[in-house]
Structure formats: structure tokens, C-alpha cells
């Protein structure tokens, strides 16, 4: 199955595993997408190899950045009309709290979809959604210039 076929299938069934399983780095990190009562959430399942600070311990900043960027791309793939794979232009992450060695969730909101560029706001949290551990603004190219 091609990536875009997997996207089309996931849009209909709301079962995203067949798509995320095609992405080697998502598998390597343990990133998945899940439907929670009609809301799309992305998840980074904890595993020991994700640790960036063994003394605390805390997850590596790169794993949280990857989750936030992935959540933005998943949002566009499921909701945007374009069937091209979105390309990240810029990613700006604010790290608000240290990420503990447990599962992390992310929700992405499409702030603005223009003709070529989409702006997505993403929040990541662990135990409580009211206490985000990181937020990001992601700009993605959804349609190249003609």
C-alpha cells in the first residue's frame, strides 16, 4: 500500500495504524495516531531509548519535537484537501516542562489553511492536558507553486 492510499483508507476507517506503520521513524519512536471520541490525538509511547537526560530521567527534546511535528502532519493528512504529503517549512517548539518517562499525547489544531501554506498549533501533555509539557507552531507547505 502506498502512503497516500494508506491516508485515504485511514480517513474512512479512522484506524490510523496502517499509515503510521509505514513510517520507519514513527515506528522507531513509537508514535501513533488515535481517534478519541472523534478527536485525533497523536501518542508517543514511552520506551527507555527515548531518554535524553538519564539523571532526571527525562525524554529527549528531539523526541518531543518529532511528536509535535508528526501531530501537525497527521492533522493535515486527515483534514486537508491536498493529497500531497505536507512538507515542514518551519518548526518552533517551546519546552514548558521536562518530559517524564511516561506516555506523551499531542493535539494539533489547524490555525490557518491558505492555498499553499498551513499553520498548525500543537500542544503536548502527559498526565494532565491542562499542564502542557511543550507547544509548537508548525508551518507546512501543502501545495507547491505552480
Amino acid at each position, binding site marked *: 500500500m502506498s502512503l497516500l492510499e494508506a491516508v485515504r483508507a485511514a480517513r474512512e476507517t479512522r484506524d490510523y495504524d496502517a499509515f503510521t506503520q509505514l*513510517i520507519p521513524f514513527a515506528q522507531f*519512536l513509537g508514535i501513533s495516531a488515535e481517534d478519541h471520541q472523534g478527536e485525533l490525538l497523536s501518542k508517543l509511547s514511552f520506551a527507555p*531509548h527515548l*531518554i535524553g537526560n*538519564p539523571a532526571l530521567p527525562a525524554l529527549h527534546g*528531539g523526541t518531543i519535537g518529532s511528536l509535535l511535528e508528526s501531530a501537525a502532519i497527521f492533522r493535515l493528512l486527515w483534514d486537508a484537501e491536498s493529497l500531497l*504529503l505536507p512538507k515542514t517549512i518551519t518548526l*518552533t517548539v517551546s519546552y514548558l516542562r521536562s518530559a517524564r518517562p511516561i506516555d506523551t499525547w499531542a493535539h494539533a489544531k489547524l490555525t490557518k489553511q491558505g492555498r499553499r501554506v498551513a499553520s498548525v498549533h500543537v500542544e503536548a501533555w502527559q498526565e494532565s492536558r491542562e499542564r502542557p509539557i511543550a507547544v509548537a507552531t508548525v508551518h507546512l507547505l501543502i501545495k507547491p507553486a505552480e
Partner: protein
Amino acid sequence: MPPEHKLELLQRFNQAFAEAVPFNRALGLRFEDYEPNVAVLRLPYSPKLVGNPESGVLHGGTITSLMDAACGAAVFLALGSPTPIATLDLRIDYLKPAVAQLDVLCHATCTKVTGNVAFVTARAHHPDEEADPIAQGAGTFIIFREGGKTSFMERQR
């Protein structure tokens, strides 16, 4: 290849940073070179790090991870002593797609250290393509100095 007098320190950096930090080890990150406030890290290409299986190109998250690690390493080098730090923010511009099968190097330069904060800029590029980077970034780090107002553990709450 860095000069001989650097090799021993590079080996020690790799032990402390690349091998002792699980995610850096999982990515296969290695110190390539260093200056007093500059870290050069290499991310070896690996099929497990691919974002698009149809093109074989690395996932953007691998570049983010490489930049975060290199920027943090540049701060450690600038501080000159093992001081706890944490990333405050990280901004990355993806300038062009990475090429499949090629390693990525990241040059991170700590441009300023204040009492509380360190500022870093970074560029990621393929080997021998320093003038044509894949990504550029800017990171800000909070420094938890001993006896400072904010302790490392306090930040965790």
C-alpha cells in the same frame, strides 16, 4: 578528520554524551569535532530513521533531534563545566529536503551565555555540502547554575 590532540577529548565526549544518553545512542549520534563553543555532530543515515519510505528521506524529527543535541552540546562546551541545562525553545527552518542514504552533520555555535540563558545557532548539512544546508536553527537554553534562583528539580514541577 580532526587533529590528533582533539581525538582523546572527542572520545570522552562520545562516551559521556553519545553513549551515555540513550536517545543519542539510539540515533547513532557522534561528535565529529568541537571548538570552545562549537559542537559538530554527525547523524549517520539509517533506514530506521526514514520519514518517507517511498523516497528514503530522513524524517524531519531526526533533524530536530540532531539540532537539539548539537545545540545542547555547544552550550556544555561554552559553559566548560558539567552544568544542568534544559531546552527552552528551538526553532528550525527546513531549507531543502535531505538526500536519502547520506549522513547529516550539524554545526552548533553557542553565541552568548548569560547568567540564566544560553543562545545557540545551528546549521545541518550533508558532508562536503556546508554551503548548501538542509536546515538552520536557533535554540535557547536555560542554565541551572549551582546556587541559582531556579534549581533543576524545581523546574520539573
